[in-house]
């Protein structure tokens, strides 16, 4: 038996832009155990509900994470609306759906780039991000922000987009889809990519479910679970079939995300065809009193907002459980047995968002 060594990974690491620290117990080059230490981004923003009223808190919710900002804000608003029993206008629901799917495209393209960077395919990283900028341009034009959308509000959305512009965007997306396909084909067919991803970090179906994995991580292991099937926002009218893959390895997660990019484009196009006219927000009176667990599907998986109001303008408790928080235990179970060189790509396949995780 060879000697065991502990290799610290992070918090400042060239591959991960975010601080996550892992103690890797290593035997030769094989990791036998990984112990996480988190809290580098813990801000304690759940406590802010005591200082900001429930309308103002939307700005905080949107800034929990810069990548899934739109869906964070939307989930929070959904939770409050559910407690206050507000019927949000249809157009607002559709706009939320469209922006939510846009943020999925931009997040997945971002992830594809980072993953390519992690397995050493620099030009793929550049190409993914080049296309992502085009998506960001649409987002900036319609919402006013590149990463922080700032469109959510309790009772609707804060901005409208004209129907003509939506139609143009829908056509524009068709040409972008071709460009995205050029890049994703390399992910799917290139031998060097497969060599790095296939068979690495296999998570079985049972393990994925019982370790509480969510999102693409869970679906890549063959569990068809997608919160969009709950039918929040406009997903009632636009049914979504979860994309699954049976392999459960890094390659499977990559495939799921790539397919989801095209699915998101399809959802946007369908939503644009169906979007109703009408108001985009409603007047909100009174204060929330009650509790609700709002669940939505973020690019990284299911996010949960537990919102509890006590009839005053400040909420009593707001708790966020973000997808990365749920995916970390699963990845810790997968890491033992992998070689040290595979750790960055393994960690990246959960699409870690540490600022979400630690709030």
């Amino acid at each position, binding site marked *: 038996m060879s000697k065991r060594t502990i290799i610290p990974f992070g918090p400042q690491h060239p591959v991960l832009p975010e601080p996550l620290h892992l103690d890797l117990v290593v035997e030769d080059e094989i990791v036998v155990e990984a112990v996480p230490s988190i809290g580098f981004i813990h801000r304690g923003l759940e406590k802010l509900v005591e200082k900001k009223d429930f309308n103002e808190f939307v700005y905080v919710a949107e800034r929990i994470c810069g990548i899934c900002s739109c869906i964070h804000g939307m989930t929070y608003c959904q939770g409050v609306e559910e407690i206050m029993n507000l019927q949000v206008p249809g157009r607002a629901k559709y706009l939320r759906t469209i922006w939510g799917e846009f943020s999925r495209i931009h997040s997945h393209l971002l992830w594809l780039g980072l993953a390519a960077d992690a397995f050493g395919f620099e030009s793929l990283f550049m190409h993914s991000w080049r296309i992502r900028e085009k998506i960001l341009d649409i987002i900036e034009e319609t919402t006013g922000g590149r990463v922080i959308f700032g469109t959510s509000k309790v009772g609707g959305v804060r901005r409208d987009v004209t129907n003509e512009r939506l139609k143009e965007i829908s056509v524009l997306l068709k040409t972008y889809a071709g460009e995205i396909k050029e890049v994703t084909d390399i992910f799917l067919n290139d031998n060097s990519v497969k060599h790095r991803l296939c068979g690495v970090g296999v998570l079985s179906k049972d393990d994925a479910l019982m370790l509480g994995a969510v999102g693409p991580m869970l679906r890549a292991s063959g569990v068809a679970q997608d*919160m969009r099937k709950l039918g929040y926002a406009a997903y009632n009218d636009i049914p979504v079939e979860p994309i699954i893959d049976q392999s459960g390895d890094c390659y499977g997660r990559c495939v799921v995300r790539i397919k989801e990019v095209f699915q998101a484009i399809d959802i946007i196009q369908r939503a644009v065809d169906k979007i109703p006219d009408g108001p985009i927000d409603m007047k909100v009176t009174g204060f929330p009193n009650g509790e609700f667990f709002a669940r939505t599907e973020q690019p990284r998986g299911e996010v949960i907002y537990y919102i509890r109001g006590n009839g005053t303008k400040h909420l009593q408790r707001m708790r966020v459980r973000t997808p990365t928080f749920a995916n970390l235990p699963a990845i810790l179970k997968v890491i033992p047995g992998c070689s040290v060189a595979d750790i960055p790509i393994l960690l990246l396949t959960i699409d870690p968002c540490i600022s979400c995780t630690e709030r």
Partner: protein
Amino acid sequence: MIESQPTEIVTLDRLKDAVRIKWAAHARLVQIGCTKTAEDQYEINYSFDENLKFSNLRIVVNPATDRVPSISDIYWNAFFYENEVHDLFGITIEGMAIDFKGNFYRMAVKHPFAAPAGQKKS
């Protein structure tokens, strides 16, 4: 209403049995979260999901006297949430799979959520 969310209130000693039933039904542990409702009364919610059906187990504890059993021997991933509940609320949880002993988050304030609510910074 997006979905119904039934909450079942269980006592501390029956918690593990109730969780085992969920495990047997192949429910996914969605989250464990704590809420302070009164000075010595904390609610802990254990949320589960069975094929998009949400359900919730709730225990009510007093951190000064009660010791909550860990469910991480049933759901291994629970240790993440339990360490969090311990660090933020100061609730004693026994038998966690990996016990960070209060070092899960390193914070300027100890157990920030246990502090009396409504303190406003001027």
